[in-house]
Each structure stands twice: as structure tokens, then as C-alpha cells.
């Protein structure tokens, strides 16, 4: 099939979201003297190609400044690409920003779109009118969001009085009232407590399963990806470093989890197979072991041989995984 062939629903045959050699170049002017300015080109996104099928839930990760936000901004029509071809639901986002807006939902984790001084419900009523959502559809979607995101008690509360977690749930509902086919989430769980995180994740899973909404999620929290996404894309310096399942990412990055053990007293570094001590601080020791491996046998072994007081497992953070991936690449 030709690459540009469009299917009946208007999406490209090659994928619901499709990028081909997309680049975004910024010209940065830096002050170097009183009136002197230095011009420098920054390639925020550099030859990016990928497709996402309808109904996929994809984690889009990378260190700060890797080009994540720039990509999302191009996919939502905020920014115009410098080069390449980009389609979302068959629409060129930068050319038809407003038409696209009806088909996408966007949640910026750190910037609420809700009306600060008005009750939560007022923001939804505005969306109802602004997006021209048919009454029945609006009712149905609102009821559903209210139920699943537990917003009933919050509808009449001014947004400024909501907690961060409540506001995030409110924002997610606001982005979904017009039945978007794609949902972009930028750090949806940042700063949320454990309970709120669980609620948000549960809701997104259900949304994806029931409505087959395509979800593209940027995050710093590996657990978001673990619990939601079957596929993860890693971007660094504007290029796609990895595209595949999360497990593969750990392999590719040879990432390690950390077991923090508190012993009864100060001891020399413990000796156990398949883990190495990376840090000792008084009675506390940090052990690194491969992320693919279960912690259970290691813990059992430690408990049997050493006077254990407490322990905890730390997941590798994305930055570390990517840094490691990069180091590998440089070596090979």
C-alpha cells in the first residue's frame, strides 16, 4: 500500500500517528557581550520517525531537554516542524490546528487548563460549549469521568481549593469530554501521592481498554510505564534511541535495581552472588543487581546470612537507564 494512502476513517494506513524524518531546529541567540549575540542552531528533534497504531498506549521517555515536549508540541499543532512529515488521525497538525483540536485531548501535568476561581463543573460546561459536544454525549462522558475519577464531591468546589491530585483528575476529565481519539499526557502523575497515582493509572487503563483511545504519555516515573504501556520509546538528543517493550529497555540499558539493606550494626560489605555492594554508610548498604532478576532469592539469602533490620528495593530511574544505554553505545 502506498505510504500516503488514507483509509476510510481518515487516518493514514501507516499508523494513526505517523512521523517521518521529522526535525525541529531552533535558532538560539545567546548574549555574549553588550550587543553581541551568538547564533546557534539547536536540533531539538532530529530526524524522528515512528508510527503509533490506533488504541496503542505508548510511553515516551527521555531526559530533560531530549525533545519530548517538542515532539508533543508538534503532534498537537502548537509548533510547526522544520522538516519531515507528520500526521495525526490523517491531519497535518500545524496546518489544521483547530480541526485537530476536536480529535485530541491534551493534559499538561504542570499547567492546569481548569478555571482557577470557578467550581470545577464550570470548566466542563465551557468545554461542552467550546467543543460543541452534543448534550447527550457530554452527559454520558461527564458521568463516566465523574464516576471513575471520583469527582462527584469536587464538582462544586472552586479549582483553587483542590489538591494537586484532585486537580490532575479534574484536568484529565476536562481533556476527555469531547471524545478525543488521542490523549497526550505530559507527566500526568508528577507530584501526586500514591493513592492519586493509582487512581489516575487505573482510569487510563480502563479508558484505553474500553474506548481504545490512543495514549501517548511522557513521564519520569518508570512505574507509569510499567503499569500502563506495552511499548516505550526513548528519545535522547532529538533521536529515537529505543522503541519496544519495557523489558527490552532494561536489557538494552543493562539497568540495575538497588536493594538498600539496614543491618544491625556496621559490617564490612556483604558478599552475595549476583549482586554487588555499591555504597556503604554505617549500618546501611546499597546493593546493585540486574533489573531483570527477582529480588526474592537475594533477600532470602541476605536474611539467612546477615543480621537484617530493614530493606527496600529501588527501581532504576529512567535517566540512569538512558545514561547507561548511551555509555554502551559510545563503547561499542
Amino acid at each position, binding site marked *: 500500500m502506498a505510504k500516503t494512502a488514507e483509509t476510510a476513517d481518515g487516518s493514514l494506513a501507516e499508523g494513526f500517528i505517523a512521523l517521518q524524518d521529522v526535525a525541529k531546529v*531552533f*535558532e538560539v541567540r545567546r548574549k555574549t557581550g553588550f550587543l553581541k549575540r551568538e547564533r546557534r542552531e539547536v536540533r531539538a528533534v532530529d530526524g524522528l520517525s515512528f508510527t503509533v497504531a490506533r488504541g496503542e498506549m505508548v510511553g515516551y521517555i527521555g531526559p530533560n531537554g531530549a525533545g519530548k515536549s*517538542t515532539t508533543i*508540541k508538534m503532534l*498537537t*499543532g*502548537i*509548533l*510547526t516542524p*522544520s522538516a519531515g512529515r507528520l500526521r495525526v488521525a490523517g491531519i497535518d497538525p*500545524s*496546518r*489544521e*490546528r*483547530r*480541526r485537530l*483540536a*476536536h480529535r*485530541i485531548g*491534551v493534559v*499538561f501535568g504542570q*499547567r492546569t*487548563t481548569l*478555571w*482557577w*476561581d*470557578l467550581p470545577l463543573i*464550570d470548566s466542563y460546561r*465551557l468545554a461542552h*460549549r*467550546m*467543543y460543541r459536544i452534543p448534550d447527550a454525549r457530554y452527559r454520558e462522558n461527564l458521568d463516566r469521568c465523574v464516576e471513575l475519577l471520583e469527582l462527584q464531591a469536587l464538582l462544586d468546589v*472552586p479549582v483553587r481549593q483542590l489538591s494537586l491530585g484532585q486537580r490532575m483528575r479534574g484536568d484529565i476529565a476536562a481533556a476527555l469530554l469531547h471524545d478525543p481519539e488521542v490523549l497526550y499526557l505530559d507527566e500526568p502523575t508528577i507530584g501526586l501521592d500514591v493513592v492519586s497515582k493509582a487512581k489516575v493509572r487505573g482510569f487510563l487503563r480502563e479508558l484505553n481498554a474500553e474506548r481504545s483511545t490512543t495514549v501517548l504519555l511522557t513521564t519520569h516515573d518508570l512505574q507509569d510505564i510499567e503499569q500502563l504501556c506495552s511499548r516505550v520509546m526513548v528519545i535522547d538528543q532529538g533521536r529515537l534511541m529505543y522503541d519496544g517493550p519495557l523489558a527490552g529497555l532494561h536489557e538494552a540499558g543493562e539497568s540495575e535495581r538497588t536493594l538498600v539493606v539496614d543491618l544491625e550494626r556496621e559490617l564490612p560489605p556483604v558478599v552475595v552472588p549476583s549482586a554487588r555492594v555499591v555504597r556503604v554508610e554505617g549500618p546501611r548498604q546499597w546493593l546493585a543487581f540486574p533489573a531483570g532478576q527477582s529480588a526474592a532469592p537475594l533477600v532470602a539469602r541476605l536474611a539467612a546470612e546477615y543480621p537484617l533490620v530493614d530493606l527496600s528495593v529501588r527501581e532504576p530511574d529512567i535517566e540512569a537507564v538512558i545514561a547507561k544505554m548511551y555509555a554502551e553505545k559510545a563503547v561499542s
Partner: protein
Amino acid sequence: MGEVGEVGEVGHPGRGRVREAVREGVRAYLMIAGMWVRSTMAYRASFVMTTFGSFATTFFDFVGIMLMFSRVDALGGWSLPEVAFLYGLSGTSFGLADLVIGSMERLGRRVRDGTLDTLLVRPAPVLAQVAADQFALRRLGRVVQGLLVLGWSVARLDVDWTPLKLLLMPVMLVSGCGIFCAVFVAGAAFQFLAQDASEVQNAFTYGGGALLQYPPTVFARELVRGVTFVLPLAFVNWLPATYVLGRPYPLALPEWVAFAPPLVAVACCALAGLAWRAGLRSYRSTGS
């Protein structure tokens, strides 16, 4: 603001498209402005006080001019009712423009903190959304004060009112509002390039409004020339008012220019629309 509608999209600027964009823009504007009015009502006492404050500030502004006239009989050859006529016209036009799109000066802040992006993902023209941002009914205070001064001056003026002069009154106010709106939009467009330029914009909007409160005869010829031919604020009140009052204009211009304000307003709005379009395009290609 309706004159300029949505001008951010790259596309076929067909007439139907423009009309549709204007309709969409006005619709979005009214919705958002309504939300802001309701937000303000969450702090009712504050609203009452700031409205009164806005009225009082502008009121004392005029008191200053009256005090000046307690010392002199004329300013640049113009009597108090005549200066009040200029003041009322300028104040009302500027007040209307400030009420409708005055918050556009906040655009730079929105660009800096990234909240402009949240407007760009909504299915409404960005210009309308930015214009309605922080819509504040308290700005009516300035309009009311302008109209009061204008009414007082008309009652005191010794003018032979012809139908043409009467017709010119509403035309002046509407065109003046259009010219000031264009200045606001052009200033906001400039803020896409220089995000901390809201003070530059204020110099033209508030500064221009204040300038027009005084007769052209008190200013240097070069300034009058600039305000007539470069930034055509003279068409807000100076030129049509000299016709109504039967006074000579410092520059030799044909009489018909007194009736040019609507044309000047439309041209200014069109230029401002193009500037806005260029500004938004540059933002979307460079980010913040």
C-alpha cells in the same frame, strides 16, 4: 477585535473562511469573557472596589485638567469645554478598546510561562482567546467617565450641530476604539518577539490615550506629524474634532480627512491582523 478574527492558521484565506473564523472568534471571545466575569464575581467586594477605583482614578485625572484651567483660560488656544471634548472622545474610545482587548498586554507573560500552549490546543482562534483573557468588567469605569466628560463638554460647547457633525460622533467613538484595538493587537504581536515588551506596548496604548487628551496645538509639529501619518492616532479625535469644533488643524490637510477615521481604523486593524499572524507564526516555528 472582530475585524481581525483568526489569523493564525496557514491555509486558504478565502472570504468564507475569514467570515467563519470571525464568527468562531467572537463566539469563543464571548464564552471566555463570560467565564472571567463569573470568576471576578467570586470576589464580589473586590470587584466593586476596583470598579470604583478605576472610575475614581480616571475622574481625578480629569479634575487635574480642570484645576489647570482655574489658572489659565485656554490651553494651546483651546477652551476647557473644547479640551473636555477631546478628553471625552479619547477616554471613551480608549476605554472601550481597553475593556474589549486590554488584557492582550499579558501575552508576553503567557509566552514566557508557556501557558499560551494551553490555548493553542483548543478549537478556538488564539487571538480571540488571548483578547478575552482576564476580561475585566471593572474597566467600564473608564468608559463611563469618558462618556460623562464628553456629555458635559457637548452641553457646554458652542457648536452649530449639523446632521453630519452629529453622525460623526458615534463614528468617531467606534473608529477610535478600532484604532486603539489595532495598537493593542500590534503590540501583542510584537511581544511574540520580545516577551518583556509590555511596557513598550503601554507607552503606545496608555501613552497615546493620554496624548490625545490635549489639543494638538500644544505639541511640537514633528510629534503631530508622527501621530497623524505614522501611528495615526490623530484620527481617533484630533482630526474629526477639529472639524466638529470648526478649528484649524496644525497641519494643512483637506477637510475630508475628518471623515477618514473609519477607513483608517479598518486599515490599522488589517495591518495589526497581519502583524499578529506573523507573530503567531514565528512563535509556532520557534517556540518560546
